[in-house]
């Protein structure tokens, strides 16, 4: 395998992984928006849906413009199919979020389901003087300190999956869920 070819493969895989990660993040956020009755979270899912469409197009263009040999094409067809599946997943997540956004007063059956949760979603901006700045999520130990669970990080209009190695930056918005009493603790930690 030529080095140049391998590099092309790497670029394609990287593009796919972003598509895959985003679509999975959307499922998590969509169900959370429903169970926690959060319009804000549902709105984020809708925004991510548009982003996924773009990622998917970019990914397919990248594959199509890579001029692979016929014998390599079959293996890439599999990857293209995975891309289509990822977009389908993102669509489904957006449908769930739409239920929340339509904002019909939820039926008692659903209301009961929501109230049983006793949890809330909170958006907290990390300020310059926060001890969280420049720490990885692993080092920050947010669940241990506050009881809140980070669902996603919003940074400069982008949504990042909360992988443990991700470094928290000044200006990040932490989207987290948990019991109401943890919200105050998280706010103190992120914007003291």
């Amino acid at each position, binding site marked *: 395998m030529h080095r140049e070819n*391998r590099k092309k493969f790497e670029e*394609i895989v990287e593009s796919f992984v972003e598509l895959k990660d985003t679509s999975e993040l959307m499922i998590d956020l969509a169900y959370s928006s429903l169970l926690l009755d959060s319009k804000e979270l549902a709105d984020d899912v809708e925004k991510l849906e548009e982003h996924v469409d773009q990622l998917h197009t970019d990914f397919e263009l990248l594959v199509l413009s890579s001029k692979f040999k016929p014998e390599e094409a*079959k293996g890439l067809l599999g990857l293209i199919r*995975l891309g289509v599946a990822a977009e389908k*997943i993102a669509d489904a997540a957006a449908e769930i979020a739409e239920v929340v956004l339509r904002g019909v007063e939820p039926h008692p059956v*659903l209301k009961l389901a929501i109230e049983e949760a006793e949890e809330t979603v909170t958006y907290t901006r990390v300020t310059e003087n926060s001890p969280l700045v420049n720490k990885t999520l692993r080092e920050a130990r947010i669940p241990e300190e506050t009881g809140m669970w980070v669902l996603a990080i919003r940074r400069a209009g982008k949504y990042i999956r909360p992988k443990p190695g991700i470094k928290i930056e000044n200006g990040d918005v932490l989207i987290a869920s948990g019991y109401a009493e943890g919200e105050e603790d998280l706010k103190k930690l992120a914007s003291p």
Partner: protein
Amino acid sequence: MSHPLEKIEYKPISVRKLLVEMKNLSELMIDLAYSAALFNDKELAEEVLELENRVDVLAYLLNMEIMIAARDSKDAEALVGVSVVASATDKISDAAADIAAVVTQKIGIHPIVSEIFRKVEERLTRVKVYEDSVLAAKTIDELDLAARMGVDIIAIRRNKEWIIDPEEKEQIKPGDILIARGAPEGIKEFKELAEAKLKKLED
């Protein structure tokens, strides 16, 4: 599909419980489907196709709950959303089946692609349990991997059979192939434990 379709009987179950289970099952299916594609495992892919039935049953039950709860047009307006969620969940499980189909229909993924993919996808792993691993002869409950390192065993391959979403009382045996998901550093530790490079379970 070849198996006969069963009649799904109504049983009272909370909507919340159904929704949470559908969420968990969707995520499980997607992870298993990507694992099947990544490790080019045809049998695991077939298991994913089977799991679709479980999602179908849940969607039926959820729809039944809605029908029982709706007495007038106002109820119907308020409940239609739940039905949309049931069908969206079904769509997610369909997508997982599409991913699995890449393997079962022998389309496959270029070996270099899976090699690079495995390097960047740090959430999923497939490991063999060595004879002298501390994981051997312990139940999933005893290992408590979720609390210890944020790792979740989602499938076990034993004697040519896959055990999907194993129960807490399931005992890990030497020679088992495990599919697990979790935080990258937890996954690394888990792999070392399975391959007996790390001999002690830390608390």
